[in-house]
């Protein structure tokens, strides 16, 4: 056997890194960040070490639902260029192992969060995993173009989980942060779906551009971006945040609407505005939540 063949074989056998990839590290980073902002913004305090362990539990819970999603959607991932290299469709990790890994880590994460913080936070984390895996992955994703709209609730819950972990409660302030991420999800994913339309078509996933067409999707993206920009200001209106946040939310929201407008007005075959909106939407969420953190650390909030 030649050296090159031996090396190829080595890469086809799963190492620890493949199991780490099952946790969708890049999606996890946004979950960790928004959960952390929820913890920082909540009143009251817990021991810093307990806060760190709670955040780790939330991160592992998010990762576990990523692994369960890759277990359930292996057939879809295999036909989409973006996801064909993932450990399960690439054949390095058997489907059943991804399932066992995901369910086991879910249980550990929920138990650890219950021990480190409280049952409300642990219950919300368990609900988040259930919603993402059962409601979104198993049911909605393959059956309706509203899949990511409703499924977005799972991605929007982490700041509420973080808030509950620190304060033992889930007040309106936390749910307004939930609302922002919830309204952000459709324009974010539909921008992606616009320039990955062929992938979704081949995989038979009824994303909005596939079912209702590009024009309708562009109009809906624009409508959501206006509602999102308005919702972005809501934390200031109910007193969760201060004037620095108001200015930042106004500017970021304004640019979001502008970028969505460029998508709406783009030539039928021009994908660049959609790519730009997709990239900016990630920056938007990071920046908006970062400003909440900065306000807390500098004492500028209400």
């Amino acid at each position, binding site marked *: *056997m030649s050296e090159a063949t031996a090396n190829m*074989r080595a890469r086809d056998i799963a*190492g*620890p890194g493949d*199991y780490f990839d099952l946790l969708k590290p890049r999606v996890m980073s946004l979950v960790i960040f928004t959960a952390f902002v929820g913890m920082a913004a909540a009143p009251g305090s817990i021991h810093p070490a*307990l806060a760190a*362990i709670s955040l*780790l539990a939330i991160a592992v819970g998010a990762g576990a639902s990523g692994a369960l999603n890759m277990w359930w959607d292996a057939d879809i991932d295999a036909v989409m260029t973006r996801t064909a290299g993932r450990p399960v469709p690439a054949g390095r990790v058997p489907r059943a192992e991804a399932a066992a890994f995901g369910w086991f880590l879910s249980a550990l994460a929920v138990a650890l969060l219950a*021990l*480190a913080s409280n049952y409300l936070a642990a219950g919300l984390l368990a609900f988040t995993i259930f919603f993402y895996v059962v409601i979104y992955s198993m049911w909605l994703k393959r059956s309706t173009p509203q899949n990511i709209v409703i499924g977005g609730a799972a991605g929007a819950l982490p700041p509420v989980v973080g808030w509950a972990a620190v304060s033992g409660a889930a007040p309106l302030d936390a749910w307004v942060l939930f609302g922002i991420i919830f309204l952000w999800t459709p324009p974010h994913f539909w921008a992606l779906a616009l320039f990955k339309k062929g992938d979704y078509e081949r995989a038979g996933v009824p994303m909005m551009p596939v079912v209702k067409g590009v024009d309708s999707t562009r109009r809906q993206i624009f409508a959501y971006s206006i509602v999102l920009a308005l919702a972005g200001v809501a934390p200031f209106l109910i007193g969760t945040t201060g004037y620095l946040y108001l200015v930042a939310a106004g500017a970021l929201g304004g640019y979001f609407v502008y970028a969505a407008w460029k998508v709406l007005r783009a030539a039928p075959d021009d994908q660049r505005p959609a790519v730009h909106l997709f990239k900016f939407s990630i920056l938007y969420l990071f920046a908006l939540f970062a400003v909440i953190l900065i306000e807390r650390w500098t004492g500028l909030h209400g």
Partner: protein
Amino acid sequence: MADRRPEKTDEIKQRDRRNVAIALGLGAFIALVFAVTLLKLGGSVAERSF
């Protein structure tokens, strides 16, 4: 049979790496639960009378 040895070695190497990762993960979980127990009990746990 001799030409199948390299393949087997790679497989065992990867399995060893997976085993080490599982051991570290379980060890970390045990350490975390222990740490949480101490933190939740509070600072005076070492001075309690039986």
